[in-house]
């Protein structure tokens, strides 16, 4: 059945039209306008937007603090992504292995993801600053300081909270992956002489590859642009040692009033994030197999 082009356009507009218009308005237009702003030295409030060419990009490459934040973000992302996925995978394994009340556990592990990042950050800030300190004091009987007061402690806290937040979400994708692999294949492998864990690693996991690709993509992109937890949990403290790339971009644009420079740094962050994400998906997709 052949359709005329006008029919196709009509159908597209009917089903995807509102979505396209919204996407265009809230993503494409601001993005293009943002690109334009990278070529100006606008301070964010004045009426004049002087054109400066590529000066902002040159400055962005010279902004040492930005690249420190970028490096910090990379370290944070590597640890968080690996831990999120390991934890999520084992949670998924646990709640598909037939333990009693597994639906309850599934819901329970997923709940942290339903709390907004800001609220979650404040809750954990309270836990780190008050609860843990009080427990520490009770145990040692002396002075106990908050994890959030030292640079490495703050980083650790950020990673811990991110893992706690995202593991439940990624778990759902892994659960779907486990469910999509037919029990028959695993049984066949076990009949052929595999142990249970051998069947798991050599049969089930390769068949779940698409779940891994998805989870890695989601966790990498989310970690790279983390802002809400960063803001409410550490606010960049102590002494600016936990400022992630996104927070630095925000500060640069709105607090330090270098809107153009901040925007240029945001574009660079976007490119880095896009390159890492797309490469990972391409590499991951290559080896996908189907049963």
């Amino acid at each position, binding site marked *: 059945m052949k359709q005329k082009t006008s029919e196709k356009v009509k159908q597209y507009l009917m089903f995807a039209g509102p979505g396209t218009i919204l996407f265009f308005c809230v993503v494409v237009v601001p993005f293009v306008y943002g690109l334009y702003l990278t070529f100006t030295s606008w*301070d964010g409030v004045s009426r004049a937007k002087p054109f400066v060419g590529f000066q902002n990009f040159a400055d962005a490459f010279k902004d040492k603090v930005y690249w420190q934040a970028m490096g910090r973000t990379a370290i944070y992302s590597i640890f968080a992504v690996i831990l999120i996925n390991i934890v999520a995978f084992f949670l998924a394994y646990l709640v598909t292995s037939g333990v009693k009340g597994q639906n309850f556990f599934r819901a329970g592990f997923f709940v942290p993801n339903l709390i907004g990042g800001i609220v979650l950050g404040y809750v954990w800030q309270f836990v780190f600053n008050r609860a843990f300190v009080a427990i520490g004091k009770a145990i040692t009987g002396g002075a106990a300081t908050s994890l959030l*007061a030292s640079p490495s402690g703050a980083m650790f806290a950020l990673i811990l909270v991110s893992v706690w937040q995202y593991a439940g979400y990624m778990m759902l994708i892994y659960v779907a992956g486990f469910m999509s692999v037919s029990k028959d294949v695993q049984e066949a492998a076990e009949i052929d002489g595999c142990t249970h864990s051998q069947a798991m690693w050599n049969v089930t996991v390769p068949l779940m590859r698409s779940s891994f690709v998805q989870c890695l993509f989601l966790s990498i992109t989310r970690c790279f642009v983390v802002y809400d937890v960063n803001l409410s949990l550490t606010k960049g403290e102590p002494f600016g040692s936990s400022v992630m790339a996104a927070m630095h971009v925000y500060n640069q644009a709105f607090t*330090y009033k270098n809107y153009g420079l901040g925007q240029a740094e945001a574009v660079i962050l976007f490119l880095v994030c896009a390159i890492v994400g797309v490469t990972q998906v391409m590499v991951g997709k290559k080896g996908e197999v189907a049963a």
Partner: protein
Amino acid sequence: MKRAIALILMLAMVTALALSGGSAYAANKVTLTIFNSKMEIQSQMEEMAEEYMDTHPDVEVEVYYSSDTVAAHMSTKYASKDPYVLSMVDAKDIFSLGPDHALDQTGEPWVAETTQAISVDGKVLGFPFCVEARGILYNADAIERITGEAFDPAAVKTTADFQALCDKLVAGGMEGPTGLQKEDWSLGAHFMQEIYEMQDDPDAFIAGIKDGSVKLAEDPVFNAMMDTFDVLKAYNWMKQAPLSAVREDTEMNLAQGKIAFKFGGNWDWSDIKDFDPEEHLGMMPVPSALEGYNEKLVGGGSKYFFIDNSVSAEQQQAAKDFLNWLVFEEDGQNFLVNTCALVPAFGNITLPVSDPLGASVKSYVDAGAMIADYRYAPDDHYAKVGISFQKYLADQIDRAGLADEITAYWATAEVGAH
């Protein structure tokens, strides 16, 4: 048929979207949006808005607050072309935003009643909401309980006096008699700026740091202030983890007499009053070994209202009426002085200041013992210098390192136009 239904559904969705864009407007009412940047009076502001609407039925008052810094929040509002009619900002924001966005209020009745209004290029742009000052907050009751003698703040002038008193308090059983905030604005904007403000000519001093003719590490005012900072730091009740100090905890301890001193200002009262404070609290200048510097508080007009010049004439008029209401009507004055416990910046307001910290400030103002605010530090000054101070507070760098970092900051920073 199916197609028709789908079409109707789509139309319905699009209309719903369009409708949600514009909020319902009450007919013939002028909407006065007010941005409040004093977190501690947000609930008072909201209650005042209700009462104001009762007496001014044709005005719809909406009060907003943001936990962002003022300058950052204003940037986002102006970047999205959605300004407030009336915005409460810091003095420096009047200089940066005012020329482009603020309405000229020259000739308004309130202008004649204050010395604290901000004018740029001969136009009156900023309405002073209150007078605030920085210094050392003390709890005289707590001190007298331990020393057994009447506490006279004027007798604690030098750093050595201050340290001696702290020693006495520690010996008397008060573990950490002082409190220091870890917030970058308290360290970078309040403490560091006192060092500029105490100079004879702050502009020349900063220019000197920039061109190298002033060595910050050798500057007598800097060193005298840092000596006092070291005392505050050494006797800090949160000495073990100064960067975990929670502002409200420190204020509570001061209110209840567990500590005796805190670096801060009269704005702390709005929190302290909730902690059932003891009777004799007050403010005194930051002790300093230098004669003449330890007898004055630092401050002046604080938090300024400006009216946006792009909103409708009715909204501008409503905003002007509101400002004059604050200054000239009994309800407005009562709101400023009693409800919000602020020190008013207007000579015609004669209501007695209700809180002890404000009363201290007013006594220094009346005696002319005030050092003026320095209002032209760049927007990133408090954040970046604040970070250096936090490092110093956590013993990551020493005083020379702090001076180096501040000097390095000024190498690229530019003071605001004035």
